[in-house]
C-alpha cells in the first residue's frame, strides 16, 4: 500500500478542491454566456489531476519509487524556525525575527563560532533594512524597532 501514499494525498487534495469549487457562487447566465461558470475550470483541472494521480499510482505500483531521504535535524529544525518566525514578526518585530532566526539557523547548521553567527545575524538585517528603506523606499511593518525608527 506504500505506493498509494503520494497519489492518495494528491487525490485527496483534488477532491477537496472539487468540493470547495462546487461551493462557489454561480454567475448569472447572462454574464457567462457561452463561456464557463467560474467553478468549472478548477473542477476540470482537478479531474485531470485525479486521472494523473491514478497514473502515478500505477507507475509506483509497477516500479517502487526511490526511498525518500526526509532530511535531518537541520531541515526540520529550519522549518520549525520558520514557524517561530511568525509570532516574533507579528508580536515583536520583523527585523528582530529575521536576526533571531538567522542566528539560530547558523548554529543549527553547524556554525560553532557564536560571535560569527551573532555578527552575521545583526549585520545582515541591518544592511538589508537600510538598503530597502533608503534606496528602495520600502516601509517595514510596525514593530519594536520600526516604531522607534519611524517614530
Amino acid at each position, binding site marked *: 500500500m506504500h505506493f498509494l501514499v*503520494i497519489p492518495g494525498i*494528491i487525490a485527496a487534495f483534488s477532491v477537496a*478542491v472539487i468540493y470547495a*469549487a462546487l461551493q*462557489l*457562487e454561480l*454567475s448569472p447566465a447572462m*454574464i*457567462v454566456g*457561452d*463561456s*464557463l461558470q*467560474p*467553478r468549472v*475550470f*478548477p473542477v476540470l*483541472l482537478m479531474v*485531470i*489531476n485525479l486521472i*494523473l494521480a491514478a*497514473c*502515478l499510482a500505477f*507507475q509506483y505500483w509497477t516500479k517502487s*519509487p*526511490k526511498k*525518500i*531521504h526526509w*532530511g*535531518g535535524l*537541520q*531541515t526540520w529544525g*529550519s*522549518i520549525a524556525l*520558520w514557524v517561530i*518566525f511568525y509570532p516574533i*514578526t*507579528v508580536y515583536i518585530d*520583523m527585523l528582530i525575527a*529575521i536576526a533571531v*532566526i*538567522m*542566528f539560530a*539557523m*547558523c548554529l543549527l*547548521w*553547524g*556554525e560553532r563560532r557564536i560571535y*560569527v553567527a551573532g555578527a*552575521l545575524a545583526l549585520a*545582515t*538585517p541591518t544592511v*538589508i533594512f537600510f538598503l*530597502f528603506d533608503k*534606496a*528602495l*523606499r*520600502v*516601509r*517595514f*511593518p510596525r514593530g519594536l524597532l520600526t516604531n522607534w525608527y519611524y517614530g
Partner: protein
Amino acid sequence: MIDALQAMASVLFDPYLVFLIFITTVLGVVIGVLPGLGATTGAALLLPFTLTMQPVHAIAVLATIYVSATFAGSITAILINTPGTSAAAATTFDGYPLAQRGEAGRALGIAVVSSTIGGVFSVIVLCIAAPMLARVAYEFRPPEYFALALFGLSMLASISAGGTVRNLIAGVFGVWLATIGAEPTTGIERFMFGNYELYEGLAFVPVFIGLFAMSELLIQSKRANQVVDKITMKAVKLPSRDDYKRIWKTVLRSCGIGTFIGILPAEGATVASMIGYAEARRWSKNKEEFGKGAIEGIAGAEAANNAATGGAMVPTMVLGIPGSGTTAVILVGLMVHGLRPGPYLFTEQVDTVYQIFGAMLLANLLFLAMGLYASKLFARISLVPLQLLWPIVFALATIGAYALSSSLLDVWIALIFGVIGFLARRHGFAVAPIAVGLILGEMVETNFQNSLKMFEGDWWRILTQPLAALFLLLAFLGLFSSPIANWFSRRRS
C-alpha cells in the same frame, strides 16, 4: 535593423546601465559559483531590488543574472566537481578529470570561451528570430494562445527533470494556483477563504521566492558541514590553436543545439548542456577520452547551456511563455515593470527590447573577461560555509517577498511555498512546472473562455483552427510520444 542595432548600441552610452550590468555580472558569477543558488534563485531574490529601477535597467539586471550565473556554474564544476548550477552538471564529466590532471586553467579557459561563443550566438539568433516570431504571433487569437499555453506546459512537463506524470501534476497544480482570487470575467471569488488580499490572485514573486529560494534552502540543509575537495589552479589559460582546432565544430554544433532547445518551452540550459555533451561525444573521434578530461566534452556542454539562455528569451518575450524557472522570473519582472510580454512588445517597446538584448550581449562579453581573469577568486567564494550563506539567503528572501507589496501575507506565502517546493522536490516533482503553470494559468483559462465565446460554446471548434490544432498535436506528441515508443519497444522485446 539599423534602429535595432542603434538601440542595442545605446546600452554602451548609458553609463548607469553599463555599471549595473558590470555589477550584476559579478553578482551573477558569484551566485553561479555558490552551490545551490543558481540563476533562478538569484533572479527571484534580486527581483524585489529592481522595483525602483527603470524597466530596461530592471530586465537587463535579471537577464544578466541569467546569462552570467549559467556560465559561472562551470567554475565550481571544474574546480571542485560541484556544479554551481544544474546547467553545469555535464561540465563536471570532463572538466573535473581534466582539472585533476593539473590542467584546471585549460579546462576553465575552454569553458569560458565556449560559453561566450554560445551566449553571443544565441543573442544574435534572438535578435533575428524574435521579431520574425512576433510577426507570426500578431495573427494569434484566443484558440491559438490557449493551445500554445498548453503546448508550453506539456513541453515543460515532458522534458523537465522528474517524470512526465509528476511534472504534469505539478503543472496542473500551478494552473490551479492561478485560479485563486477573483475570476476575471465574472468577478466571483475563488479559493480566497475570506482573505481579500488574495482578490487579485497569488502574487508571483513570493511564490517564486518560496519555490526556488526557500525550498533550495531546505534541500541544501542536508549538505551542511559537508567538506569539499578543491583543486588548486595557477591561472586560466586561453585555448591553444590545437584546442581550437579540436573544439570549433563541437562549439558550433552546441550553439545550434542550445539555441534550438532554448527556444522550445522547456527547461533550456540543463537539457541543452546534456544534449550538447552527448552530441559532442557522438561526433568525436576521441570517444575514449570522454569522462577522462576530453576538451570537446567541456566545450559541447558549455556552449550549449549558454546558447540556451538567448533561445529561452524568444518565447518568453514574444509569446509570454516562459521556458524555464529563470525565464519565468524574468517574465514576472517584465509584468511588474509594466511591460506586456507578447508580440506587441516588439512594436510598442521596441527600443526597450533591443536594449535588453544589448545588455545580454554585453553581459556575455563581460563574463568572458571575468572568467579569464577572476575565476580563481570566484572559485574561492564557492567555499563560503553553507551555515553562513543560507541564513543570508533566508533574510534576503523574506524581505524580498515582503518588499513587492509591503504585505506580510507575501512572506507567509513564500515560507509556505518553500515547504511545498521542498516536499515536492523530495518526491521527484519539479517546481518549475508549478511556477510556469501559475504564470500560464490565467492565459489558459481566459483564452479557453474567449475561444468558447468565439465558437458559441463548441469547444471542439478550437481544433478546426490550423495553428491551434498544430500546437495541440505537438503538445500531445510531446506528452505521449515517449511512453508510446517505450510501450512498443517493450512489446517488441
